[in-house]
């Protein structure tokens, strides 16, 4: 592990017309680290993720990513070709809605194999072998690899997305509300799985969630966002147990405890 961050975001901003979605967001992310971005709906956390993931062009700011080769690239300033190539080969993006993150017209195996083919995999047997291993890793029976994702439950679809996004061994995985809309028991299983896989793969992750419990369980560090700004940042347990900002205190005090 090196002391250099894998990602350095500075001054990221995005507005939709006159509505500011993200303002001056800066943070660093180190290899193997999980960063949670929390805040209520409309706080700008999903816009932040979409800017990082190349879905939305930011208005300002820099997103400097350290590639496997050691080269540091500002993804905002890079050509679209380079940006898309890097995002494809070295990043993953688990979308909130599996319909955005999966291809529903092809089998589960094809969904997991596609990123490998996208980076040049041309051996059917190897691609299928990897897909089978990753389905197993996300606790989907490899015997179902030729089934369509639409025949899977919501939790399975999310796990399939995770397999699809980890199969290329990315350096960074973005996750947008990965447990949103799932039953509590399914959530627990998914969280445990994400926690384990992220650690085993040594991948750095940015997890957007409105659920502080998810943040507590998954994240080393946390950003608290409100009205497009980061109001507080720090170690997850520190922010949750000793929140300084009024908004963080409000969030923490609003959590239902069992």
């Amino acid at each position, binding site marked *: 592990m090196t002391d250099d961050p894998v990602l350095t975001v500075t001054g990221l901003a995005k507005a939709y017309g006159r509505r500011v979605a993200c303002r001056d967001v800066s943070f660093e992310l180190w290899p193997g680290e999980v960063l949670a971005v929390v805040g209520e709906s409309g706080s700008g956390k999903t816009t932040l993720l979409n800017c990082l993931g190349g879905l939305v062009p930011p208005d300002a700011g820099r997103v400097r990513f350290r590639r496997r080769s050691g080269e540091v690239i500002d993804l905002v300033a890079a050509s679209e070709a380079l940006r898309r190539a890097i995002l494809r080969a070295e990043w993953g993006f688990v979308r909130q809605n599996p319909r955005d993150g999966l291809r529903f017209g092809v089998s589960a195996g094809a969904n997991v194999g596609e990123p490998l083919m996208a980076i040049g995999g041309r051996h*059917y047997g190897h691609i299928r072998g990897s897909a089978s291993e990753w389905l197993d890793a996300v606790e989907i029976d490899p015997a179902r690899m030729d089934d369509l994702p639409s025949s899977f439950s919501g939790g399975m679809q999310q796990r399939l997305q995770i397999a699809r996004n980890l199969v290329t061994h990315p350096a960074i995985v973005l996750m947008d509300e990965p447990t949103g809309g799932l039953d509590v028991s399914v959530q627990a299983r998914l969280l445990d799985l994400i926690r384990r896989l992220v650690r085993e793969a040594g991948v750095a992750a940015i997890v957007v969630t409105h659920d502080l419990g998810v943040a507590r369980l998954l994240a080393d560090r946390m950003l608290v966002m409100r009205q497009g700004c980061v109001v507080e940042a720090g170690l997850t347990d520190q922010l949750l147990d000793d929140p300084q900002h009024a908004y963080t205190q409000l969030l923490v005090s609003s959590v239902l405890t069992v």
Partner: protein
Amino acid sequence: MTADGYNFGYLDEQTKRMIRRAILKGVAIPGYQVPFGSREMPLPYGWGTGGIQITAAVIGPGDTLKVIDQGADDTTNAVSIRNFFVRMCDVATTERTAEASIIQTRHRIPERKLAPGQILVYQVPIPEPLRWLEPRETETRKMHALREYGVMHVKLYEDISVKGRVSTAYDYPVLVNGRYIMRPSPIPKFDTPKMHRMAALQLFGAGREKRIYAVPPYTDVVPLDFEDHPFTIETWDQACALCGATTSFLDEVILDDRGRRMFVCSDTDFCQERREAGHRGDGGPNPLEEAAE
């Protein structure tokens, strides 16, 4: 003489220049789909309007034209297009592949190896190979530009995992000059290898979709496949019932309602030449001979 009131080749000279510019651009960037201002032609879309416009733009008084449809010179579509150019250009026509300087084709490549200087014009219904997985034209253009072609193999993968083999039998996607993925128009995959380093110039016209693309002579055209599932072409147990050829693409011809059938060369000129050279097939009843009796 050309028909009164019509310009040579039906299209006006400005239009021909526009199409030629598109062709030149296509030749310069092999496999790249060049948009062009496709004109209304005196026949419906799907009947070869793209191919006709290309032919009209490149044909000259000294050319000899051959038109085939599914390999045959004598089908309605081929006859109509050939007659169209006779009326509009008064050019010589032929059914002989070797004698033609321009061959307009629908769904086949002649069996005879084409020579330098010849032009093969394909009629293309759908030019975009990425369409089945990405309906947005803006996105497919970007995918071509950035060479994001991984998804093409997803279709092959899906074929193999679901059907045990690649089931695409015609219009098989190819990589042109190591750069652009291209639909070769609905030719059988049997013909796909003929495109590779072909001596003739290959031009593709899609009239409804307003796209022209090209493969210059001696350009690499490689079908997509997997290392462990290599591209293969169709084979037949039979030889051609008429000429005995074993290496050509065969059509199954149903002879009557008692189930009698025979297999004959799809390329009528190829078959004819072989018979003239004395080759004979032995399989199946031969309606030509029956008719002669």
